[in-house]
């Protein structure tokens, strides 16, 4: 498909182009989104207003009144004017999203090569599905790893330095690099592109994290990403009703964590409450753990962080014995508290609450009574 004049910055682009085409006009005057008058020439020459239409390759005048269906659809798509039939035709005629011609999948959609648009798409999807942090975390790592994406990100980084992005005019897909070009003209960015792009730019310091020097950078990127995500996805207004203050710290109303110990696994959910504890959906803590020291294990994180009686605890445990389950629950509660307020992690450091004890029972070994126990020595027989 050949290049067409850029009209996205106009207020009513498609209607005016269509009207001009119908009248066999070679140029028409329109208004951009700011309300300034702009003259658009469709066949040749420059309009002298510095719009992008001058940069684009002009269509031949003979075909002006007879735009191909591709051209019409592309124009309408770019202009944001869609009737039902147009949308259906766009969908039917659009090329597969995946570069390797695999069927349409969400993952491929994220990994499509439309550069910075990927970031915006992902973050929009994140915001839409309400799973901002984890998904974005995963994608950040992907950005570091994935060649194409990292290349694209580095290309996105360049325009601020070199003034021109990687999305060339020959690219059939409208890229973020091209959208950046509109900055100069209209001074208005498409919605949702600024924050995420800025975040990606700052965060995506391209060092593979498995290399020694890349580790710290990844951490830095992670730190920055976390702050950005926190700022953009939660916001002070939204977070105000999800958090509360306790002992000078800000705590989330709900948090969860998982922990393991020996063969036991535990999942703890803490909610703002009065200190009720429920194990496996129905049992009281003193019923489930008969011994005090097991219960002390479970509730130790609350004691260390000073949040006893502040949260209700709902814990599911499975596998192992009572002691292992108690320690697994302890780890889960500790992680949940860190999730609720990260700055409390230091309080639990001394008692190694957050230490994941991955030791497992040794298997029985041949020639021995058990894993380490040896046969008793007998003098005779």
């Amino acid at each position, binding site marked *: 498909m050949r290049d067409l004049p850029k009209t996205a910055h106009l207020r009513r682009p498609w209607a005016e182009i269509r009207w001009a085409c119908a009248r066999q006009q070679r140029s028409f005057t329109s208004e951009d989104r700011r309300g300034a008058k702009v003259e658009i020439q469709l066949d040749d020459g420059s309009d002298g207003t510095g719009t992008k239409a001058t940069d684009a390759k002009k269509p031949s005048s003979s075909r002006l009144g007879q735009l191909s269906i591709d051209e019409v659809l592309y124009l309408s798509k770019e202009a944001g004017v869609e009737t039902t039939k147009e949308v259906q035709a766009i969908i039917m005629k659009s090329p597969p999203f995946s570069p390797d011609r695999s069927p349409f999948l969400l993952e491929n959609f994220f990994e499509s090569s439309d550069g910075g648009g990927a970031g915006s798409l992902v973050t929009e999807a994140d915001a839409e599905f309400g799973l901002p942090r984890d998904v974005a*975390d995963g994608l950040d790592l992907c950005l570091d790893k994935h060649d194409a994406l990292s290349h694209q990100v580095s290309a996105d980084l360049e325009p601020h330095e070199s003034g021109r992005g990687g999305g060339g005019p020959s690219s059939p897909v409208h890229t973020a690099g091209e959208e950046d070009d509109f900055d100069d003209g209209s001074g208005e960015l498409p919605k949702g592109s600024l924050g995420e792009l800025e975040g990606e730019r700052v965060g995506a310091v391209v060092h593979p994290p498995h290399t020694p020097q890349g580790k710290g950078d990844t951490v830095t990127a992670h730190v920055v990403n976390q702050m950005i995500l926190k700022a953009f996805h939660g916001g002070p207004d939204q*977070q105000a009703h999800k958090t509360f203050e306790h002992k000078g710290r800000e705590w989330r109303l709900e948090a969860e964590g998982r922990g393991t110990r020996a063969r036991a696994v535990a999942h703890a959910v803490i909610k703002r409450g009065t200190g009720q504890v429920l194990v496996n959906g129905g049992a009281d803590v003193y019923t489930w753990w008969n011994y005090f020291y097991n219960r002390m294990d479970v*509730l130790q994180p609350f004691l260390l962080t000073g949040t006893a009686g*502040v949260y209700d605890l709902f814990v599911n445990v499975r596998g192992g014995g009572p002691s292992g389950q108690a320690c697994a629950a302890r780890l889960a509660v500790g992680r949940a508290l860190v999730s609720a307020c990260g700055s409390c992690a230091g309080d639990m450091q001394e008692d190694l609450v957050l230490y994941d004890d991955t030791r497992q029972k040794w298997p029985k070994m041949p020639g021995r009574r058990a894993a380490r126990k040896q046969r008793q020595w007998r003098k005779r027989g």
Partner: protein
Amino acid sequence: MPALPSLPSQHAAPPIPRHRSLPRQQRQLLATAAGAAPAVRRSGDARLSRRYDLPVETDSTLVSERERRHMARLAMITEEEQMDIYPAVTVGFAPTPTEVEPVKRPFLYIPPENLAAGEIGVDDIGRFRLFVRDSLTELIPEGLCGELPKDITMFPSRTTPVGIMLRKPAFEMISQLQQVQQHRGADGGWTIPKGGFLIDGHRGTGKSAVLNFLVAWARESGWLVIFEPSPRRYAHEIGEIKRSNTGVYIQSEFTQQFLERVSVRNREMLERMPVHGACYGDSAIDGSHHLYTQRVYDPLIGKVVQQRIDDKLSGRVSEEESEEEGEEESEESSEEESGESEGESETATSGGGGALSKDDAIGIQRERLRLWHAYRKEVKIPSLRDRLPSPENLYEIVDFGLQNEAFATQCAYELFEQLKKQTTFPLMIAVDQWNECFPVSEYLSIKYENTKYNGYIPAFHLTMPRLFHKWDGWQLKRGIKVAATCWKYANRRDYRPELLKVKREEVRTVRNFSAFEFANFVAYYRRKRVIQHFPREKLDYFYMLTGGNGFQSRRLLAMLY
């Protein structure tokens, strides 16, 4: 690890894209970032469910790969960086200033002026009511139920007053009982339109404490309270038992002890209560109704009568014998009964004389009736009316039982029958450990071999637990029955109240301590010097540790401090 290509299904994880150009590690990372489940967690069930498109059961205890990475990353971050990532307070966060509430500790005990005025309010829930020890002994001479005696033994002082906490169910019940205490029915007579309360709850929640509070309140408010703190001992302590003809085992010693305890506090009230004549003397020696006891002999009488009739039909009975017999019977009846019985004896002699013929069906039936009547008269159920013909008040019945051990059980059952009819005082029959009336006792009997009781006598076949085991509060004309029970304590039997005819609205469940109640409990122990050095800042922690359960709290506090 690249995932196997599979059809996208609604419940299964989305397929992982294949990127042949990327190294394996990167492919894996991409896969996990896309939200795919880690391949290691694929069990047979998951495969099956994927194959048949069944919903996959999510297990919340599984640790996903993403979380592992998150934890690993967290471990890499230093404390300063943590503070950067998770600042203690966000920039835009503006907490509302919390108002400092004044300490309510001065009101650990219910104010005496409230008690004097009878004004116990909702504010007093969770506070202790103090009893001077001597007054408590006088008020509840049957003994306190539950673990309150243990509390008292833990006090270092022998004279300090004893506190009982006012719990929410106790407050509710008291307020309800205050409404019905002076209630009159449609006919203008005293009545209480209420069956009673079943105090329910897990072990250590304070059921017995509630009952103690209730009994103390009722006694002070002018109720007649029959209080049994421990029916368990009747089924588990050693005592003499005698089997009656109806199959109930009589416990005379225990009954005497019970009557003695009842009479200590209630003597004056019992003396003021008249005996209801219509139902007096109906109880048999084992407490069952005398008509029921008479029916036990019916099969025996029937057998003898049939034998006699057969003899007469076969002519084995001579005329002389039959005449003699008829005369004897007529003499007996004339001695016992008045003029009516003479007529009966006449008919008996007239019908009974001579041999019967097989064709005379009417004659046979008449003879059968005559014999049946004659033999049934010989069955005598000893009635209390014979020994104590006209007691003036209920205490005389109790006193008679105390004087005669053989009649103790009968007296106790007569007393309870009389209490059903009385309207002099509002009555409360309070039983703790009610569930102990239902499992087997420790007494063995050959009669219960090869039954579901496995050779042990069930407790409700012993007369003393049998006295309390029925949920018959509705039969008390001006009274209620209050039973405290824990369904899961004794022998881990799961009793259902509805099978015992307890209505749902009659059940009052006692829950664990609230935080305020727990704080008061600790403060009370501190005041009584049961615990010495309790760290105040750990109060919430200990509340979580014990779950607010009274039993656990007592154990923990007594152990640690």
